[in-house]
């Protein structure tokens, strides 16, 4: 049996990696990806707890996190496109 805290450790490491990604990367898309890592860390935690605590709530939360991550990715990428396009055009002008 794998101890619960092992999962917590993995998720914590991932969370920190994501955090550092946000802090140190310059590229917006990669920052976005780093946030995805953070969210994944959270889902790992949630699923693990869900399993160990024998409660479905954690999985549900994880599911919703994925859904929301999807929506936010869409918006985020749209914003990036706007910015990017706007700059190109201003540059051309």
């Amino acid at each position, binding site marked *: 049996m794998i101890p*619960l805290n092992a999962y*917590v450790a993995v*998720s914590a490491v991932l*969370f920190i990696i*994501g*955090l550092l990604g*946000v802090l140190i990367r310059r590229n*917006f898309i990669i*920052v*976005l990806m780093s*946030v995805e890592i*953070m*969210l994944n*860390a*959270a*889902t790992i*935690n*949630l699923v*693990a*707890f869900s399993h160990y*605590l024998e*409660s479905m*709530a*954690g999985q*549900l*939360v994880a599911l*919703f*996190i994925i859904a*929301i991550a999807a*929506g*936010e990715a869409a*918006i*985020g990428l*749209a*914003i*990036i496109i*706007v*910015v990017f396009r*706007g700059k190109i055009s*201003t540059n051309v002008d």
Partner: protein
Amino acid sequence: MTFALTISSSDLLLLLPEILLTSWLCLILIIDFSFPRLPNEQLAYFSIAGLVATLGCLAWFDIAGITGSLFANMFALDRMALFFKMFIVGSTILVILASIDYIHRFKFFRGEYYFLVVMSALGMMFMASANDLLSVFVALEFSTIGFYVLVAYLREDTASNEAGIKFFILGIFAAGLLAYGISLVYGVTGKLVFSDMQAVQATPGLVIGFLLIFGALGFKIGAVPFHSWIPDTYHGAPTPVTAFLSIAPKAAAFAILIRMFFVALATFKPIWALFIVAVSILSMTYGNIVAIAQKNMKRLLAYSGIAQIGNLLIGLATGTKMGSDAMLFYLLTYLFANIGAWAIVIAVSEAIGSEEVDDYSGLGRRSPFLAFSMLIFLLSLAGVPPLAGFIGKLYIFVAAIKEGLYVLITVGLINIVISMYYYLIVVKKMYISEPHDRSPLKISGPIKVVLYVCLAGTLTIGIYPQPVTDWVVSAFLMFSNLADPTAALPVPPTVIPFGG
């Protein structure tokens, strides 16, 4: 494990405002798609009609005392939720009114603007009712996603883009923190609903979890040190959006903070009170001091908003019923003064196309009404009697003094003086400085309505606050552990910040 969805029509009644608004949201979208030539004013009034209906519904609930909870206690419709919902819907109405003129700056998708605003309002209504961590997360992101778009709505404008992207990055960063915090709290307690979490052991996991949640909410309300997005975003975003951003999400986040701290963490009050004191002191001082140096009205108001949040946190730091009553009251006073001030910024920027403090020179002569309103709002923000802001500050300070938070109070009071300083700079510009251009300013009808409402609110609450105090006092009756102010909460007599 069986399927056990038991929802009666009376349960659905509790969701009526949200259902109503959701339907209206769809209607707005449908009308916008179906009648592309519809003048945007009409869509605005249509949206407002829906919001007013919702507001009426909420008011009916409040008066009739219809309360309850749904979905395993995850959706709480108590009087506090009603208060916040009305607050949010009300501020949304004002914001939409104030934006009618501004809309013409958007080259595309004017109709969707209303959709997004109302959608954010809907999300915040859910926040006001959110009684569990999942709802918090979902509703928070739901309301925020609208703002991501709204902030970047001026697609041609670099500043707006910049603001949008900064807000977005930091917003999802906060969402990441929130998600991870929720996961940790869930791990420690095994629960999501706030009221089920009482009396748990304090472990590092729980502390870090709640801290991360607090960080995300602090980001929403813009408290130092989670404030960094505020000035740039406020500056770059379309002004009505800034106005909206500066009040409604903060209120909704406060609803969550109150539930979290007063219910889930009631037993840990001595601890969280301390760090809220620290955050409050930092917010007030930082916001006020940096505001002095601002040359741009939007940035000035942004920093002043940070400081005001510091004031509000004083109420949270007390951890008593009186403190939370005071917070609610303060929020109301802040609503009118704040939206009013922003409406003036909108009006002025519509008229002269500038938001620099310098360009407010001679406003007293160019538009006495605008200048006078601004004076009233600024003074209310500064807490000068008998305006609403004064009573709000008084309420909060009395609550804090009762808890013996002297350090906090002292800092708060000194900050009032500092804030007066920069508010007076604006007043001086408006009334004393010679205008660059003497032509009178035109104010549009909707903005006037907003200003009248805000003026009336500011003055009425200031002069006759009784109904409002009754309201906020009744809004908090459900916290049984706080109902009696002398109840035996683990309250330390004096709190010295920073671990003394």
